[in-house]
């Protein structure tokens, strides 16, 4: 018996030794930070995009195949994000000599997976993720400051000022450090039935009813007035059943409030992570949300992405606030509003912003090559390589190209919205952003369902925000 025990003990110890020995491979082991390959002129050619010839696909002449033998692993979400990166990676590989592997994970599970690996596995050299997550990684020391690379190895064509300023500030900077480059911009847009707004008969009816001209609303007051006019419950002659719609199901409903919060001068949190919404701005935004409910579909609180878009595409809604992705539903063959929709900034002029940024992990095996990849996919020509994968440009110069503007009628409104946007859809509070979203959603749903009055909801949200933010040791 004793002999058997010793054999088992020996086996356990041997296994422990083997495991710990295997574990000695650390992220820092392969320190090949500097390029090892020979620099040579490389000519990279890609098919024209939107009729534009891409002339700067060799990193402003700084790549030169000198990263040969180095491998970069980039993590992101499956779908368009991964496809766009894979497409750009082909040309980067030709120009730099490096190998790029894009690893992607399904939406809804990607955040946990990437967080786990950043903390323990260290497989990834770069991550392309929503801004709130990227800033969380920055707070946790999991991604690198890009400034040293910008100072030493940047392409002469980097031109940071060319990024839309609000994007570079909101996406790229965290606590004054440049931790990421903007990759995919996102902003709530205002979609309206252009055909109805331009119909002289409807314009006349509106004038008779309200004494005002029917114009695309920019102020909240006009927004509510037009929404009422286009709601059959209040105007039986309305050509549409509902004046307004959006996604108001749980996980989406906070946007209806956020889209007005900044318009009234509020914010979710200030620069010290202190809640900045329990004030007149927050209350007025709540009231506007309740006013909009009167003109929204009866099933509004059940509308998620597919349902809300299908309803708008069915022609029953006059105006909608939604992410740019609605465009593909509007333009689909099944849509009854194809070619009939106009685009603008959400009424109030301060839309909520989403967005994705690309950053380098602090365990990147080949940091210089990784930086060059980040720079490459966000360069002026590089970001046109992703435009066909629904990744809209983040640089002003690309919105100024006539071919780009002509490719999507939404782009002028998107540029205006991105420039005007102030609040991020996921509060920019590291570690607890998702929890704060839940808190907002619970409170907003409570108000929309009539279970909470607006002030009580704001009080509850503020208390919960403070509790969660304090719990992770962020200053208040």
């Amino acid at each position, binding site marked *: 018996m004793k002999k058997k025990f010793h054999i088992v003990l020996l086996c356990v110890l041997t296994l422990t030794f083997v495991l710990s020995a295997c574990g000695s491979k650390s992220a820092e082991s392969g320190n090949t930070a500097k390029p090892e390959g020979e620099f040579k002129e490389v000519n990279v050619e890609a098919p024209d995009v939107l009729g534009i010839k891409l002339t700067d696909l060799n990193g402003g002449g700084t790549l030169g195949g000198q990263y040969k033998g180095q491998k970069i692993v980039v993590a992101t979400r*499956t*779908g*368009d994000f991964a496809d766009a990166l894979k497409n750009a990676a082909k040309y980067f590989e030709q120009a730099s000599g490096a190998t790029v592997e894009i690893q992607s994970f399904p*939406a809804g599970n990607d955040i946990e*997976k990437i967080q*786990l690996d950043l903390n*323990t596995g260290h497989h990834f050299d770069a991550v392309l993720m929503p801004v709130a997550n990227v800033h969380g990684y920055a707070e946790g020391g999991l991604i690198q400051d890009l400034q040293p690379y910008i100072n030493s190895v940047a392409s002469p064509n980097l031109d940071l000022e060319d990024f839309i300023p609000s994007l570079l500030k909101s996406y790229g900077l965290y606590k004054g450090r440049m931790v990421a480059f903007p990759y995919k911009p996102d902003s709530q847009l205002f979609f309206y039935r252009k055909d109805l707004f331009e119909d002289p008969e409807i314009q006349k009816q509106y004038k008779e009813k309200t004494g005002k001209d029917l114009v695309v609303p920019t102020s909240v007051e006009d927004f509510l007035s037009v929404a009422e006019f286009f709601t059959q419950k209040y105007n039986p002659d309305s050509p549409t059943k509902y004046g307004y719609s959006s996604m108001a199901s749980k996980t989406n409903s906070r946007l209806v409030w956020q889209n007005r919060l900044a318009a009234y001068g509020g914010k979710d949190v200030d620069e010290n992570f202190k809640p900045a919404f329990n004030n007149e701005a927050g209350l007025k935004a709540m009231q506007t949300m309740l006013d909009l409910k009167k003109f929204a579909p009866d099933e509004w609180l059940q509308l998620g992405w*597919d349902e809300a878009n299908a309803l708008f595409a069915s022609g029953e809604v006059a105006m909608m606030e939604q992410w740019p*992705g609605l465009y593909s539903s509007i333009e689909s063959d099944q849509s009854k509003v194809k070619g009939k929709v106009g685009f603008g900034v959400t009424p109030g002029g301060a839309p909520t912003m989403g967005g994705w940024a690309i950053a380098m992990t602090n365990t990147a095996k080949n940091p210089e090559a990784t930086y060059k990849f980040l720079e490459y996919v966000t360069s002026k020509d590089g970001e046109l390589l992703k435009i066909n994968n629904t990744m809209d440009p983040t640089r002003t110069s690309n919105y100024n190209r006539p071919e780009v503007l002509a490719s999507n009628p939404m782009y002028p409104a998107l540029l205006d919205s991105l420039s005007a946007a102030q609040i991020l859809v996921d509060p920019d509070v590291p570690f607890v952003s998702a929890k704060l979203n839940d808190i907002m959603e619970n409170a907003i749903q409570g108000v929309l369902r009539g279970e909470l009055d607006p002030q009580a909801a704001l009080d509850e949200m503020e208390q919960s925000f403070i509790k969660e933010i304090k719990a992770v040791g962020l200053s208040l």
Partner: protein
Amino acid sequence: MKKHNAEKFALYLLLVLFVIAFLFPIYWAVTTSFKTAGQIMKVPPEFFPSSWTLQNYVEVFTKHQIGTYFINSLVVAVTTTLCGIIVGTFAGYGFSRFKFMGRTFWQYAIIVMRMVPGLVFIIPYYIIFQKIGILDTLFGLIIVYTTAALPLAIWLFMGFFDELPTEMFEAAKIDGCSEFGTYWRIALPLIVPGIVVAAILVFLAAYNEFSLSLVLIFTDRNKTLPLGISGMIQLQKDTPFGTLAAAGTIAFIPALILALTTQKYVQAGITAGAVKG
């Protein structure tokens, strides 16, 4: 007589309702996979497609690497099943046939492992696999799935072996059969229906598993079907119902083949280990 007919009618009605409830979603998924986007969103819906397209299948094979995912899933599920059956029958036979110290303790220790939610093991698996270099490999998945399947398999096989009369083993021994020979030539052939049932359960568990593969697999070349299919859904984009239905239909093929080929064993197998003699 009238009462008897009414009972029969009610029974058949109930059966028909159950059949519809079970088969209609499958019918809907299969027909959706052959519809265009316009047909899928049509109101009122088309219960039988007015025209058929293979576009969704073309897309899942060309754009989404469904072939790779399918092969990976089959490799993982088949190997897990084989390992589970081999180790499970050995262990089940051992527990059933031999009396040894701590036998009851180990039996319950095994089933307790089954009671712990699999997700609890994710982080330890991740760290161990990372250290021994089998993260992002099908081999790693097979180890995890086999480990997860073994408690159920062992207990099922214990039940099946317990059913066999002791006299049979004694007769085999008297005739000079070795212990392995008894296991291989006498016991195993008698519990084939049980093996089939256990194999189906283990296969489907491995074939459909998502959470562990999500954490342990990184690259497209090693992704399994649940992981690959879930990646087809994108937020802020219309759900691709057609391609999802096509992928689902392809994923459904092994389950269908299993159901059709093993049906005769299942009935016997389900009840075989239920009552001990």
